[in-house]
């Protein structure tokens, strides 16, 4: 059930609109699904009745209501069906602990949101181009045996 969609986990509507706008400005035309907190993201990935959708890329904020970003990462790591989805932590924190915790919890990249929209748009375009076009994703063979 690998799709070419992008899952954006972001609770701030201003940030959401800016990120969507940044995607529009880039050449990335993949569908963007938005989850507004960690619980919504988990509910989307693990719908409870069988396999959930497998986004091609997840952009994850850390500081989220209900279930935080790190917990989402840990839950995804603990499940073979979601373990190999690339996750980019996209946050305004540059705390060393946050960066370390993110990598330890299985993040594939950590990007601090630049203040300027033009820089942010560049970052989003670069992320999309790298993870959706350049990077070779893990082959999907259904649930893994481990």
């Amino acid at each position, binding site marked *: 059930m690998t799709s070419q969609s992008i899952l954006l986990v972001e609770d*701030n509507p*201003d*940030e959401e609109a*800016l990120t969507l*706008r940044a995607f529009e400005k880039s050449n990335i035309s993949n569908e963007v699904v938005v989850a507004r907190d960690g619980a919504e993201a988990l509910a989307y990935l693990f719908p409870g009745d069988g396999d959930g959708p497998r986004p091609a890329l997840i952009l994850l904020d850390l500081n989220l209501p209900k279930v935080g970003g790190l917990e989402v990462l840990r839950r995804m790591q603990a499940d073979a069906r979601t373990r190999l989805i690339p996750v980019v932590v996209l946050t*305004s*924190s*540059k705390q060393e602990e946050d960066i370390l915790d993110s990598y330890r919890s299985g993040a594939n990249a950590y990007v601090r*949101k630049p*203040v*300027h*929209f*033009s820089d*942010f748009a560049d970052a989003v375009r670069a992320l999309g181009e790298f993870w959706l076009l350049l990077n070779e994703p893990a082959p999907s063979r259904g649930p893994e045996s481990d």
Partner: protein
Amino acid sequence: MTQLIPLADGMFVALLEAVPDAMVCIAADGRLVLVNAQAERLFGYERAELIGQPVEILVPDAARAVHPGHRAGYVADPRHRPMGAGLSFAGRRRDASTFAAEVSLSTIDTDEGILVAAAIRDVTGQRRMKDLERSNHGLESFIYTVAHDLRAPLRALSGYSELLLEEYWEVLGEEGRGYAERIVAVSEQMGQLIDYLLQLSRVLRAELHLQSVDLGGEAAQIAEEIQRREPLRHVCFTIQKQVQALADRRLILTVLQNLLDNAWKFTSGRDDASIEFGTASGGDAAVCCYVRDNGVGFDPAYAAKLFQPFQRLHAARDFPGLGTGLASVRHIVERHGGHVWAEGAVGGGATFYFTLDGKESA
């Protein structure tokens, strides 16, 4: 019950006077039978006013009613209770003022029956320090949280004004574009202020990893990098070699970077610019370093203001910057137990000094 060696009366009293804490002895009926000079001083009574009085005279009014019960409880089960063993009390002075006290209790078996000996220490100062540390720590976390949370609205502010400029260029007209550009510009400034606050909270909270650092070698490297950024400027750097200091390497590099950047910036108008790094004698400090330049200098009347955040002594259009660099320098140096000061004159260059103690300050 404690009595190891029988003591002559005089010897016991002499011992009582020799201890640093206030001591009182209480008979089985709760009356004071012995007090030392430290107790007189601590509670503000003359000895004669205390002897024969119930010990409750030394207990704050609010706790007086329950105190005899506590006393009876202790006599029934008289284990030695040292200071810091959870016995936090308040004491009451003669003038009815109170103070935080730590009390240790033990019993003395005498011919006249069991005496309870209490040593009392005024811990108001320690309590206040602890409260201060706690509130400081709270403040540091608060700075971090506020600064961090300000970034989100700032990003929206900056982002949407940029989008306005990009997508509504025509509609806005020249004046409108000018306004939007101002918003973008001040957002940029605000972003730097927030970064300063984040850095400040990092400096205040960071654990110092002290190691031996060659400040001269590091300064030379920073100077080289600065020169590389602007290869057309000619500046004469004189850097003293081998200046060893015990410091947190990452933080002390920020100090050197800021001071050398400043020197570079404020000599930009001179063809014969020179910047010097060296050591001076700094009183008791382990190391005293300075960075000297022959740039525009400053009015010594404002020397103290230099190290305050967001203070600038020069117009932003002449010398860009936020006025946070020297404030960071001060915070870092003070974390190292040192201090900073500056000497200069308008048009006469500036010298910035900092000392390092080789120890971490609380």
